[in-house]
């Protein structure tokens, strides 16, 4: 399976990833078997609501979960399994071959160092080059993420920047060591609409220039449609459906995807009653047997409430985890 040669093929492959948070009196199954692979220059969006396990999956890939998290499965990054790497190796990979941007740049950036210092420090640490070279690279990075008057901005502290600028600075920091995979955890959620589209466009353009793979996690269908090549719809710790952006947006197969799209308000819905998914997502500490969506699903039959739900994949790679996918396709 894992060919260390990394000539072609996926830069990131996740196999059967599961994450459980086990503490004294709780056992939360946050991620329950996630599989995907990602090629260079490709963007996969994990679309899901709160508690779907999308952020936990991302943190598992980055090795950022707390000690009491039990992680199983394989995360192949450039042919090496992240989960078996010793901590020292992992530190080198983190911020190097794989890096991450967050929803709240204020929390990810260190308030006591300037933007320039933080980027230069990361470069020095990973590549061992001189401070001078690192500083020049930092300037180039700020220009690359289109921060106006970059030379001046290098000497700014995070709190001296506006929300959108901070997000750009964090992207620059993440790109410092030319990662092959960029993990993005809701990077546009906290931003204003006019700034959000700027960041989405920036990420798209940077990807074309640098050829990295992006895993973009969001709850926002609009952002997902704007940026993704493929979308994976996540529910209760599993991918309910994966497909190209067109397939997911135009011919959703899984009842959850359909419900999610139908309940997302967009233009031209005035005067109509919104279609909703009744109830709310299940408690991850007490997942129902069978399909986790069955208790809210309009099409659920007995087969949905027991055993493993088969995965149905068509020849284009459009996958849905649903018992009734074949009959319920009227698209």
């Amino acid at each position, binding site marked *: 399976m894992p060919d260390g040669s990394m000539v072609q093929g996926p830069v990131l492959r996740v196999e059967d990833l599961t994450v459980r948070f086990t503490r004294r009196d709780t056992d939360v199954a946050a991620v329950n078997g996630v599989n995907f692979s990602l090629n260079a220059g490709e963007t996969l969006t994990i679309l899901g609501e709160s508690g779907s396990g999308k952020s936990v999956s991302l943190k598992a890939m980055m090795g950022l979960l707390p000690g009491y998290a039990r992680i199983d499965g394989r995360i192949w990054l450039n042919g090496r399994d992240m989960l078996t790497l010793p901590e020292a190796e992992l530190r080198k990979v983190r911020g190097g071959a794989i890096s991450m941007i967050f929803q709240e740049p204020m929390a990810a950036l260190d308030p006591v160092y300037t933007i320039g210092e933080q980027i230069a420090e990361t470069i020095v640490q990973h590549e061992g080059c001189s401070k001078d070279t690192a500083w020049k690279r930092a300037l180039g990075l700020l220009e690359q993420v289109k921060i106006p008057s970059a030379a001046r901005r290098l000497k700014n502290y995070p709190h001296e920047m506006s929300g959108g600028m901070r997000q750009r600075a964090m992207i620059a920091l993440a790109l410092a060591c030319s990662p092959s995979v960029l993990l993005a955890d809701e990077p546009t959620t906290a931003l204003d609409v006019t*700034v959000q589209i700027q960041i989405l466009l920036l990420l798209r353009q940077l990807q074309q220039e640098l050829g990295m793979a992006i895993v973009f996690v969001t709850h926002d269908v609009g952002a997902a449609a704007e940026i993704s090549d493929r979308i994976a719809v996540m529910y209760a710790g599993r991918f309910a459906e994966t497909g190209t952006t067109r397939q997911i947006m135009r011919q959703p197969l899984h009842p959850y995807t359909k*419900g999610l799209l139908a309940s997302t308000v967009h233009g031209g819905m*005035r005067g109509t009653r919104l279609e909703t998914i009744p109830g709310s997502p299940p408690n991850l500490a007490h997942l129902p047997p069978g399909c986790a969506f069955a208790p809210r699903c309009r099409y659920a039959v007995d087969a949905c409430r027991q055993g493993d739900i088969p995965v149905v994949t068509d020849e284009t790679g459009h996958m849905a985890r649903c018992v009734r996918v074949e009959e319920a396709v009227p698209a």
Partner: protein
Amino acid sequence: MSAALQIPLDPRDRGGPAQPLLLVENLRKHFPVRGGILNRQTATVQAVDDVSFSVRKGETLGIVGESGCGKSTTARLLMRLIEPDAGDVIFDGDAVGDRRGISVNDMRRQMQMVFQDSYTSLNPRMTMVESIAYAPRMHGTPRREAIDRAEMLLHRVGLNPRQYARRYPHELSGGQRQRVNIARALALEPRLVILDEAVAALDKSVEAQVLNLLGELKESLNLTYLFISHDLNVVEYMSDRVMVMYLGRVVEAGPVESIYRHPRHPYTRALFASKPTLDPDRRTTEMPLTGDPPNPINPPSGCRFRTRCAFAQPRCAERVPELLAPVAGDADASHVVACHVPEAQTPKHHTTEVGHA
């Protein structure tokens, strides 16, 4: 959507359907920024500056804008959670806080608010039914009656009282808590409900449920809404009329169809063009606006949008544009714009379509 005409007689209705339920004139709030050892005022945040609008009986007025535009401050000013520096608020013909008008307390019985954060807006030490019954009890409703009514309200917002009445906030999901907050706001039987980003923190599937609920409640209880949100799609869905705010001022206002189909202010147009298209084949390729909204501390002179506006001219820096109906054209007079530059207001078709090139 002429809901105003269908309102049956409310004993509290004073001026009839033609009189606006809420009339706001020249509302202003500037927050001092203090600093230094002596705590001197060093700057001013012009959070709300000269804002005027009206809300008709039975309609939903949507307020959109980005962070720092003053929409939430406006809500808090209306509720008198903060004191305005200047301006008049007239509730159904009565000036609020005026000797000859209506007291702030009486106004609050008729005007209630739902906050964004469903968790912090509920007292963690009170059960759901206690929270809902609290305000009526403080206003003298006997305990038993207040609790019965609270349970009825719970049912009304779609929560089974038997299951949820005695629960605490942390035992409910965000959507359920927001339903309780809505019930709490309705407990005093208000006529106007201010919804300040009331669905912003909810998941999309839950958001749709709450929006449907708000629609039903409005119909069955003859409510009037002031719907504040940053989400353009949700505002379009909910509102009869829309008001767009930028850095503490109103830049455009009018009927929802008119605003969404023919936005006139350059800011409104940029805002709409920034909306994700939801169509993988027609993705946005050009940024409608660059940079972030400027800081409301010491905003630009004249038209506050001029620093980011492609049509800006010298006069935009000199004079504050007034909210006026366009001189000519097909739009009706209720659609008003605050812009000096007529050519900026002419919606060129390629400008609105710029995203889909």
